[in-house]
């Protein structure tokens, strides 16, 4: 099996694990940690796709270019944007979690929903 394909399947499995954690955990902090797992698995997916054409890092040391089993540089360059977006997303969601905890003193989603329903009734 191509090492790139293996990495792609591993990344899909870890995507499923993170997504399940995001859906079934009632705690906000655990949901955010699962979101981090999903983001990392997306990065891993892109790395796997770029490793399909070869596993040598695309850093060329001598100028008359010699062909080789180089990894595709384009997906790796694109995923830098994804990493920064994931970082910003995690930071902002943690800030909103701090706000929620200061207001309602709980991180459980079910009790938060009950509190919101009671507030709407009044």
């Amino acid at each position: 099996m191509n090492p790139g394909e293996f990495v792609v399947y591993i990344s899909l499995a870890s995507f499923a694990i993170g997504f399940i954690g995001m859906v079934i955990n009632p705690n906000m902090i655990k949901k955010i940690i699962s979101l981090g797992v999903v983001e990392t698995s997306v990065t891993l997916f892109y790395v796997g796709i770029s490793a399909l054409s070869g596993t040598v890092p695309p850093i060329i040391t001598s100028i008359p270019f010699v062909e080789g089993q180089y990894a595709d540089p384009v997906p790796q360059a694109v995923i830098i944007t994804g990493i920064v977006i994931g970082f910003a997303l995690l930071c902002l969601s943690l800030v909103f979690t701090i706000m929620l905890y200061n207001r309602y003193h709980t991180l459980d989603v079910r009790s938060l929903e009950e509190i919101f329903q009671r507030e709407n009734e009044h």
Partner: protein
Amino acid sequence: MKKFFSVIIIVYIIIMSFFLIDLEKADNTNMNIENIILRVNIPNTITAIYLETRIYDTIFEVVLFSLAVVGVNFILKNEKVHSLKKQTLISASHIYSIFLSATSITLFVYIVLYGHLSPGGGFGGGVVLASGIVLYAISANYNKTNNTLIKYKIEEISNISFLITVTIMIYTVFSGDFLREISQGQEFGTLFSGALIPLLNLLIGFKVFAGSWKMSNDFVKRRGTL
């Protein structure tokens, strides 16, 4: 029961996506790398892509990072601050964290300036330096780093570096031929073969360092709330 069904549905969707993914390898990778090397004249093709051929993407990436930092500062301003009277010090962790933060400064300079010759770049370098400083703040002396952040006007300098970065990037988008002529005159694999790319990496690195330091500083200040 609800949870069980949601897990089954997610696993089903993921298994179906196994069949949708096209795992054919790109057939013209070598040609692409050769074209990029001839155009930009630096060894690291990934840096060449995100700071030269796809730089329009990177402009908005830097803008997004700055917006996230501004958002975190703005929203956390009204939350209550945990008052820190004194910090428990363990002498071993104190000394090791000083050593590690000094090492991280050296690593920052190397990763940022050689980012176009070897693996590295502005984003990675900035995070390395910020993690070294934050490690020192947590394990040795938080008040000292907080005072340093205010005294040396790190935020103001990082905003100026952000403006210079965006200016250089927009200049590269609209008249990149001039920069390409500079880099073609240099020898392949030297520091100055990247024209303005080392400078761009340094400015981005400083921006990322200051932004992540400021954000973690805010989180540490309000740690008693969670």
